[in-house]
């Protein structure tokens, strides 16, 4: 036990005396959160928009004026036809278009019902949804004003058409995704690099030729990084709550428990990588690049998994981050308990155990 504690203390010395490790550990999460929170913002200002007005009457003019007055939109110009609009979409010049059919005002006043179409470029789903919501709100407001002193209400029905990505799968709620990404990269990289460094420096030889069991070597590597990763997790949560106003609606204990398992699976990954690499650079490359891509691609926090071809959807199932992300989203943002995520949790725990077993098995008690 004393050996174990001394070993753990030694690991902490390594971490706090190495700038590179500290950078990965604390610089990475902060940079990621700030990057996703502010630079990659989904808030929209001055989106380019066009209006196709087939009726050109009082009502449409009033609505167009309101849209133009909104800070969210910059009314490009009034195009004459549908074809012009489509061309503008294809050139990527506009994000959104509003189409008024002929006789808009007549329908509204006599039939008490009129239609307006909103067409949005949904290849960027977050922007698209936000824009169409804004437009909806503007039209709704107009309708409300119109109905203020009239017994039979006028109805303007907005019909929203999503171009390119009709399912609208994109999430603004990136914090769970960033947590998954940061934990994956930081835990995996730190573990693999710290073990490979022992190999590279030759200290692994000395460690192995000692009564200290190889299994304990791994455990005493894992414990400090587990603790540091939980600290990391806390930092991201705090940043999310206080800097980006992300709510934590679910049970905090459950969040930590799920994260613990996810971190363990990341540590096992790192261990596995360290078993098959012999230089710190290689270990770093594999952990960072090799883990970053699948985590970003297959967790569904930037790219909707449902839209991927089925082979990729199948592959996404073997990425632990996908399950973790789904749990985090449900618990953190929807505020649901273990009953809502027990299936995902089971998969995550199973994966963690399997990974841990494989990585322990692959750890070499000799040099070759």
């Amino acid at each position, binding site marked *: 036990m*004393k*050996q174990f504690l*001394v*070993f753990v203390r*030694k690991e902490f*010395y*390594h971490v706090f*005396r*190495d700038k590179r490790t500290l950078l990965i550990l604390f610089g990475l999460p902060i940079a990621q959160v700030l990057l996703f929170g502010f630079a990659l913002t989904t808030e929209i200002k001055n989106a380019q928009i066009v209006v196709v007005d087939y009726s050109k009457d009082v009502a449409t003019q009033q609505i167009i004026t309101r849209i133009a007055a909104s800070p969210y939109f910059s009314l490009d110009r009034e195009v004459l036809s549908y074809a012009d609009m489509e061309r503008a979409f294809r050139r990527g010049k506009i994000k959104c278009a509003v189409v008024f059919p002929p006789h808009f005002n007549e329908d509204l006043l006599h039939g008490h019902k009129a239609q307006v179409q909103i067409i949005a470029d949904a290849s960027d789903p977050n922007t698209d949804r936000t824009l169409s919501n804004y437009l909806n709100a503007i039209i709704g407001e107009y309708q409300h004003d119109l109905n203020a002193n009239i017994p039979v209400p006028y109805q303007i029905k907005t019909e929203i058409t999503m171009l390119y990505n009709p399912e609208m799968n994109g999430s603004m709620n990136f914090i769970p995704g960033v947590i998954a990404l940061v934990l994956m990269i930081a835990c995996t990289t730190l573990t693999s690099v710290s073990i490979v460094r022992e190999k590279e*420096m*030759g*200290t692994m*030889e*000395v*460690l*192995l*030729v*000692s*009564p*200290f069991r190889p299994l304990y070597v791994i455990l005493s590597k894992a414990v400090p990084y587990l603790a540091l990763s939980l600290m990391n997790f806390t930092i991201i949560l705090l940043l999310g709550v206080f800097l980006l106003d992300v709510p934590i609606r679910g049970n905090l204990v459950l969040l930590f428990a799920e994260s613990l398992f996810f971190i363990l699976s990341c540590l096992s990954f790192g261990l596995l990588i360290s078993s098959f690499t012999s230089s710190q650079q290689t270990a770093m490359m594999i952990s960072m690049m090799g883990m970053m891509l699948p985590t970003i691609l297959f967790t569904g926090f930037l790219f909707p998994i449902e839209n991927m071809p089925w082979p990729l959807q199948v592959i996404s199932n073997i990425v632990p981050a996908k399950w973790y992300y789904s749990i985090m989203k449900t618990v953190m943002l929807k505020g649901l308990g273990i009953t809502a995520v027990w299936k995902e949790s089971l998969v995550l725990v199973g994966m963690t155990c399997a990974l841990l077993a494989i990585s322990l098995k692959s750890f070499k008690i*000799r*040099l*070759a």
Partner: protein
Amino acid sequence: MPDAVTLEGITKTYDKGKVVAVKDVSFTVKQGELFGLIGPDGAGKSTLFRILTTLLLPDAGVATVAGLDTTRDFRKIRACVGYMPGRFSLYQDLSVAENLNFFATLFDTTVEANYALIRDIYEQIKPFSTRRAGKLSGGMKQKLALCCALVHKPDVLFLDEPTTGVDAVSRKEFWDMLKRLKEQGISILVSTPYMDEANLCERIALIQNGKILSIDTPQQIIRDYPGKLYAVRSGSMHKLLADTRSFPGTASSYAFGQYLHLAFTPGREGSAANLEKYLGERGHSGIEIEEITASVEDRFIQLMGNDR
């Protein structure tokens, strides 16, 4: 008391048999002996050390350390040997004292418990005990590494090229320390590429290309040098090498410090006078030819020649 180390027909290959590191190596290190493994880089010394410290499994053969089988009883061996790898293998970002304490704890002991054993060595680096190991000089690094390998009072000490990259003064100090450790009853297997250090061992094994050329005391190895050896020099050393080699009676001639070491082919050993005449005819001036006692290196070169 079993022998400290025994090797019996040890063979080890890398890359699935393509590269032969050591081939059919057998020798014994007796209890309390200071045994030297002498050979150039790439001879297979480190491979042997790793097999004996249970870090590598041999392809063939049996090895024991302190009477324990290196394959079967590897765990017991790991608890009772001290190993200092060829490369500096301590934590560079830990201080001298932190390193020593760490390794003491790792071996389930304390620095104080066996302080008597390392006192002589540790006193020398103690003034720097708060300095990071990475910032020590080469000689001090080796002293610290030796302390760390000794801190648990091992039965057998494995030192892989401990004096490589260390200045001459520190090298001498290091060997003095080894002698004192030997007096305390620790069996020591040490490797070195420096032939002059061979004389400091009780027995040595000459190793080249993974094969043992000879095993004996340094004195006996020198005595076994066949025939006579001459040191030759003249005003123009470069030309001298070519000319001595073209002399019909020469078996071998090679540069050795400021001289050439030259052996005549058996049966023509009295040719020294003829050689002087031969060299004189080729315009050499200041010719010196003197019979000398062979060194371990001469014997090594001679054995290497036989081996080819």
